[in-house]
């Protein structure tokens, strides 16, 4: 299993839209989305919603607040079953 922070770093390298990546310490991870990395122009709001929808379709619930996406590494990191978190 890839550590969640590493996985998000891979996504960040692949997508211009992901400007800042927080995490690697503790339980929370966050992605800050931009329309343009140089000017830091914010991403269009519907895009963040679309990312949420597509992520859900692909198998993970993430939370969008404004133009940021937050994930807990407890959820992102392990594939446990009931009773075996």
């Amino acid at each position: 299993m890839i550590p969640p922070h590493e996985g998000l770093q891979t996504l960040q390298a692949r997508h211009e839209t992901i400007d800042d990546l927080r995490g690697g310490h503790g339980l929370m991870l966050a992605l800050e989305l931009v329309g343009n990395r140089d000017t830091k122009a914010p991403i269009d709001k519907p895009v963040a919603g679309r990312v949420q929808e597509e992520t859900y379709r692909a198998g993970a619930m993430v939370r969008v607040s404004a133009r940021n996406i937050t994930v807990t590494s407890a959820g992102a990191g392990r594939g446990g079953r009931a009773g075996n978190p």
Partner: protein
Amino acid sequence: MKDSNFLKEHNVRSMWHPMAYPADSLANPPTIVTGGAGVRITDVDGHEVVDGVSGLWNVNLGYSCQPIKDALAAQLDQLPYYSIVRGTSNDAVIQLAEELRAFLEPDGLTRAFYTSGGSDSVETALRLARQYHKTRGEAGRVKFLSLKTGYHGTHFGGVPINGNANFSNAYEPPLAGCRHIPAPYTPVATHLMRPNRSGWRCCAWRYWRTGSPFRARAASRRSSWSRCWARGGDPAARGLADVAGPPRDDR
């Protein structure tokens, strides 16, 4: 369980979602989750996903975690509830307080006050803070300082100390004595960066002196980032001392 059509049809009809407009909830129907096991949740259409949000960051040990279910059931069998309001207590809360103390004592927290949620906790902490100073004979120390980007819940004390005005505008007038101070917020805070793009520290400092990044330029030339450092220490901490120090009557 009612069928999925019933649930989708009725979701917003007889309830409000927190932090959402009812019309928006109707226009953008929420995902209706009907099951959870381990790190996975299942929605009303049978779609299963990993829950990267852990509920709302609170389901830290997974859904349907067997040891938790066992402990809950055992406690329900033994004693579902007893009040701890003056005059009575119960064995479970006493033991829990000792556990919390062992866990939090290194941070200086040695006593628990039980509440029913986060907003409730913030509310209680605000009251206790004022009571603490009154009891110690400093009744003038009544202000609350909070960070501009902070979130402190949705009750009447927490709302005005929230940093985001979306959480407070509709509920004003606010509690008296609430002050907001700048917070470090690095990346996409372009409105903070705009004055000279020199980073949040300078901007935050100007913000602190002037209350606005846009009125900030002149003030920042007069003052004193360097002077502040020369006087020793972190400007935010110094600012805190200015406001929170002696009792003042300008509130």
